[in-house]
């Protein structure tokens, strides 16, 4: 499958506040073309297919989230972008450069343009916060004076201006990740890779780190590619999302669209927090109705429909009682998003009236099954 995010999808900040992005607009920042990755397969061992043909692009200035369960191939996917892993077949192109075609030295130059942050921070315990942020600059051969001028403002940016002399063991998890972010930004990268950067943090710290990433994306015009197993992360900051399962991208698009109408089972499972049915309801669902059963329907409110009193009108239109079984309202990509699971009589006449009502109002619905 191929998913194209066009240049018009780019967050406005990329053009407005950012520095020049080098590549012509329209070229994606990252693009995967038929990428596969197999591990092993030598010496009689069976090969393990981590990625089985991935096509995927990330636009300049986007915050793209790749979400999947552990073992789905997301870590491999993100490591292909900076060449820490090599694809078995297919192409990974970063800002017009094919990663696989680069010699080792070219790969090192590319990596200096790509920042990366990690789940376990990966800070050097022997260096202070300041020296950790300075490390990528030392590696790039930047002189001490420039390093000194550069690291301070970076620590200020991540809110750790007063912790320059602290060692990682003296910092909290959230502070360590802030140092990690400052370090990733030290070489002025155009792309930031985030490998489960908030998975080791508590919910509150997670939110503050996500807000920091969002701010960096807006202020520096930096493209962010993050992988996570938490829908919460994608929902909070991503503009685009791809769902990966067993080495394949099974669904992708704008976060709001995927959230509003998830097509794949994996997506639904990952959306569990707000969209999964309660256990008692899930076990009661039948795929076909028998006499006297009630239809179980999910109503999704977003955009226009979120602001209209549709539930009340539904009851009136149906001429049947409507039972609310589950639901919630949250904010995704700054827009309200509601989901309501209701049941009503599965009589053909009622169903027909319901469908007419949905068509009229533009309400997104999905028949989940039938319950007694």
């Amino acid at each position, binding site marked *: 499958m191929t998913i194209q995010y066009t240049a018009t999808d780019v967050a406005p900040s990329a053009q407005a506040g950012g520095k020049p992005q080098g590549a012509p607009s329209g070229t994606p920042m990252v693009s995967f073309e038929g990428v596969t990755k197999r591990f092993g397969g030598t010496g009689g061992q069976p090969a393990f297919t981590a990625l089985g043909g991935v096509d995927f692009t990330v636009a300049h200035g986007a915050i793209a989230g790749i979400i999947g369960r552990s073992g789905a191939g997301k870590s491999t996917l993100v490591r292909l972008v900076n060449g*820490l892993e090599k694809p078995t077949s297919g192409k990974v192109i970063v800002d017009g450069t094919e990663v696989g075609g680069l010699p080792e030295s070219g790969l090192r130059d590319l990596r200096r343009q790509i920042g990366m942050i990690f789940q376990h921070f990966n800070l050097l315990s022997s260096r202070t916060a300041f020296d950790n942020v300075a490390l990528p600059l030392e590696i790039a051969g930047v002189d001490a004076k420039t390093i000194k001028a550069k690291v301070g403002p970076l620590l200020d940016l991540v809110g750790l201006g007063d912790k320059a002399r602290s060692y990682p063991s003296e910092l909290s998890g959230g502070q360590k990740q802030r140092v990690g972010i400052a370090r990733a930004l030290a070489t002025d990268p155009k792309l930031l890779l985030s490998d489960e950067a908030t998975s080791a943090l508590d919910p509150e710290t997670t939110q503050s780190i996500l807000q920091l990433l969002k701010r960096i994306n807006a202020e520096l015009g930096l493209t962010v590619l993050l992988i996570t197993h938490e829908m919460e992360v994608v929902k909070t900051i991503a503009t685009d999302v791809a769902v990966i399962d067993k080495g394949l991208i099974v669904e992708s698009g704008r976060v709001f669209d995927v959230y509003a109408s998830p097509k794949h089972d994996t997506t639904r499972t990952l959306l569990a927090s707000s969209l999964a049915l309660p256990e008692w309801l899930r076990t009661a669902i039948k795929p076909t109705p028998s006499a006297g059963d009630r239809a179980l329907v999910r109503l999704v409110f977003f955009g226009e429909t979120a602001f209209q009193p549709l539930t009340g009108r539904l009851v009136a239109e149906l001429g049947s009682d409507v039972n609310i079984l589950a639901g919630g309202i949250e904010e995704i990509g700054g827009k309200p998003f509601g989901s309501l699971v209701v049941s009503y009589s599965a009589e053909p006449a009622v169903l027909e009236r319901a469908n007419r009502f949905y068509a009229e109002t533009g309400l997104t619905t999905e028949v989940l099954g039938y319950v007694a």
Partner: protein
Amino acid sequence: MSPEMLFNLLLKSLGQTAQMVAAAGIIGSLIGLPIGIFLATSGKGELFPAPTINRIVGLIINAARSTPFIILVVAIIPFTRLITGTSIGTYAAIVPLTIATIPFFARLVEAAIREIDKGLIEAARAMGATPTQIVFKVLLAEARPSLMAALTMTLVSLIGYSAMVGAVGGGGLGDLGIRYGYQRFMPEMMLAVVVVLIVLVQLVQSAGDGLARRFDKRNRKN
């Protein structure tokens, strides 16, 4: 023999031991360090992949480490003569001591480097570091406390080994203890030697521990 003479003997032996341990410790560690780094980074898929050479070097190291030290001393006499021009005396004893130190320290260095979180190597690679930069800026820097501990352990072992080089006229405290304390039935000399050795080992150990602690920022609460 007067007590003064005995004391001077003790002092001279201490000097010989210090000389042998310091020389073998410094030369052996300097040679053992790069070998240890090589062992820790040349496996399959590591920074400087050379799995065949890695295995061969590992084999040699194991062979050297399983040779009893006193046999090593005698076995390499021709080599010792080649280097120092003589096969007896304190300088000659430094050669087998150094040869014994190299594999010992190399294995400790290997262990210290392997202990480092692979995530740090990955992070450095993601920054665009060359393998050499990773060794110097990440591995050696992070392993500093463990390397200090390894050096301490090596020096303490060397003090023990140096007691055996009396066999080739190396002198030193161990030799003094055997010749005077045991063979000349002077228990007070034996006791003095043992006490001096205990103090020496304590000093080396404390100094090493102190330095290791200073380098260690992993658990900074002080």
